[in-house]
């Protein structure tokens, strides 16, 4: 199946089996390894990317279900010229430990803040369903609040 995707604002022509999950399109075809494989069944969120601005779990989204010319944004495209507020906040709060789930956490957090620029703690808890085995959750919560501030300052 042939299709053109716009990945981090670059058009890429692909010819792949229709059932190939977007995750492996990104990692194995586009060479963008920042997006991670954790479970393969949309449970852990390590593979979270933005599809036309919305967060999706790319391990469970087949190539055939991705619309032609869809805009895909991965961690590599999140803060291209300078750090995105969530990345800035993640460093300020020293969130990551092993770092493996953090691309997915950052993409989920960026999507949350786009939707809801001032989320409450309970909205953060509901929106952030990604798994972190290191237990960085308390810092993620703080960093999202900090990113909300940074985003307001920028606006």
């Amino acid at each position, binding site marked *: 199946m042939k299709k053109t995707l716009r990945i981090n604002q670059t058009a890429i022509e692909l010819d792949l089996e229709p059932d190939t999950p977007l995750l492996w399109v990104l990692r194995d075809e586009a060479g963008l390894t920042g997006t991670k494989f954790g479970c393969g069944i949309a449970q*852990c969120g390590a593979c979270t990317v933005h599809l036309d601005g919305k967060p999706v779990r790319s391990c469970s989204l087949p190539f055939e279900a991705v619309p032609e010319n869809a805009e895909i944004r991965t961690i590599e495209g999140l803060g291209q010229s300078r750090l995105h507020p969530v*990345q800035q906040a993640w460093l300020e709060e020293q969130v990551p430990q*092993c*770092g*493996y789930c953090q691309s997915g956490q950052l993409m989920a957090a960026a999507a949350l803040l786009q939707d809801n620029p001032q989320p409450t703690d309970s909205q953060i808890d509901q929106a952030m369903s990604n798994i972190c085995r*290191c237990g960085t959750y308390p*810092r993620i919560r703080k960093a999202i609040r900090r990113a909300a501030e940074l985003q307001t300052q920028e606006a």
Partner: protein
Amino acid sequence: MKIENISRRDFFRKTGVTAGAFALAFSFPATPKRALAAQGESDFIATWLQIDEEGLVHLWIPASEMGQGSLPSLAQILADEMEADYERIRALTAPKGDAYKNPMFGMQATGGSTSVRAWWNPLREIGANVRMMMIEAGAQKMGVRPSDCRAYNHRVVHSSGKSVDYAEIVSIAAGLSVPEKVALKERHEHRYIGKAMPRVDLPAKVNGSAQFGIDVDLPELLVATVMTSPAFGGELESMDQEAAMKVRGVKHVVEIPNGVAVVATGYWQAQKGLRALNPSFQGGASKGMDDAQIEVALRKDADNGKAVPAHVSGDLATGRQKAVQSLEMEYQVPYLAHSTMEPMNATAWVTKEFAKIWAPTQAQTPSVMIASGISGLPPEKVELNTTFLGTGLGRRFEGDFIQQAVLISMKIGGKPVKVVWSREEDMRHDFYRPQALSRFRVDLDQSGMPVAWENRITTPSIFSRVFPGMVKGGLDRAAVEGAAKDADYELPNQHTEYVLHESPIPVGFWRSVGHSFNAFFMESAIDEAAHASGSDPYDYRMRVMKTPRLRKALEMVAEKANWGSAPTGIFQGIAAHSSFGSFVAQVVEVSLPGENQIKVERVVCVADCGTYVNPQIIQMQMEGGILFGLTAAAFGDINFEDGAVKQGNFDSYRMVKQKEVPTIEVYVMDNYEEGPGGFGEPGVPPIAPALTNALFAATGNRVRSLPLSKQGFELV
């Protein structure tokens, strides 16, 4: 320790580093010079710290980074002692090399919360050498006496005020000999050590550029995925190779020990190939076993197995003469998976001439031996590069995934291959935290003090497989750690014994190892003793505690948590445990929002890790250890059916998520009288008992078997 200025050797061209840079190699008595010489230049190349002509400092850090903060902590030590500008250091995980052997292990490996403890002195000494050599070089450059100069923030500063940057003097330093003796900095001179410096590994972890094992890429790299017998030790019975080879992208089907690998152009293609291959298996040591049988076998050993003493003091019968009450208690914990966030993987390229491996591993020396054994290549022909680890948790101390990668590369004609496991393979082929059963009889006198302490721990032995030489007379010390002589309480007439339970289920090191269950057993038993004698659990612990540093941590946690004054509807539990050279006390506060529902509202944690490098990294490890232990206490339970693990993914093996995460307050004690303690593991042991002790305070229900989900409690 021997340190050598190797700047003038001609290997720079080989490594692509410009000549003229300054570089130090170092070796230790444990790894004699002879060994380095015998292994030739390639080993020397692996053993250095380098300052390039721009003055950028490259540090090769001798510990795997799996989230625990060893890489940034060790970089911080070096940067401080050498007076580097923190912005101008670059830290990488060291490749395989004898000089990187962990002085506490005698081999290159990361575990046991040892990195800072093992490397604190050697790395300070190396840093101090660099500082002294830079002062000497700077003095030469400025034409002044070294004794009138000092190093500060990447510069050598003369008493007159003039100064030079390290970048301007690297070529002079490259020609100097290493000082015979160096003075380490005094505590008040430290600029990074002891401070919450930002972790040097984090920028790459927020932009997707950090390289994990699963991200390794090489020209012509193929990707393999595997399936091994669901029953441990079973063999491949049948498969449809033709169907697998028809799948687009599939290149090879390769048999491996106890299973099969499909090799393809990418992971998805390999998975599809594996599905088409549809392998079936037969036999296996665990074949036919289910939870009920496993439980019966464990209890049989607890009742009648051969018990060996782990610690004996005084005499039980004599002690019991003073007793006014006697508590008999039985505690139990299940098998647990590691579930590292990054599934098992490794990349190998093995030819007749060399083996090159890239892997997220905690165990470099054993991995090299494995690769050498399979390939027949001598160890010096085996190159091993350690990537970042998407958590290790002890699972990556094993070499099974490396063995597979080496074997598959050989079987496909010496081509590079990356083996990547599915989550299901990862969960079903772990080396599990062993199940354990602990029986107590605790006798208390009139005042409630223990007068006789009898404890039998029945659990499989990890060391019997990993390092059999460490099991003496049937006693595996890891199985009784935290409950034997090292128990934190004054226990007169103590009789603690161990029964080695043989089981076909593979067991391994799981963050905090034996402490992960013995702390639950001991801190529950002590809590029961407190209640039985009508004492407050905190007061009781203070009366019985023998470990002075843990007593101080306990005192501080009670104060910080406002012990005994919880608001209405909030119930507190307390626990304290020492492990890996550190002392940790925790108070858990819970509420009960609905029937059988439990909400963890707050955890207050005090840690005495002695002298610390970075208090924030310790805080992070305590937070992470608490949530790791909370996940296990609330949900962790690996079950078996027909000899195979039932759980396969995160839908059936739950992890704590954001909405269940309590407020966590961590206080790191200032204790510079003592050397550094571990911090990757000690946060784990106290959380389960602190939680169940809180649950007892709330409900009167004493949870003696984990997880809570099995007891009908739901974490909300």
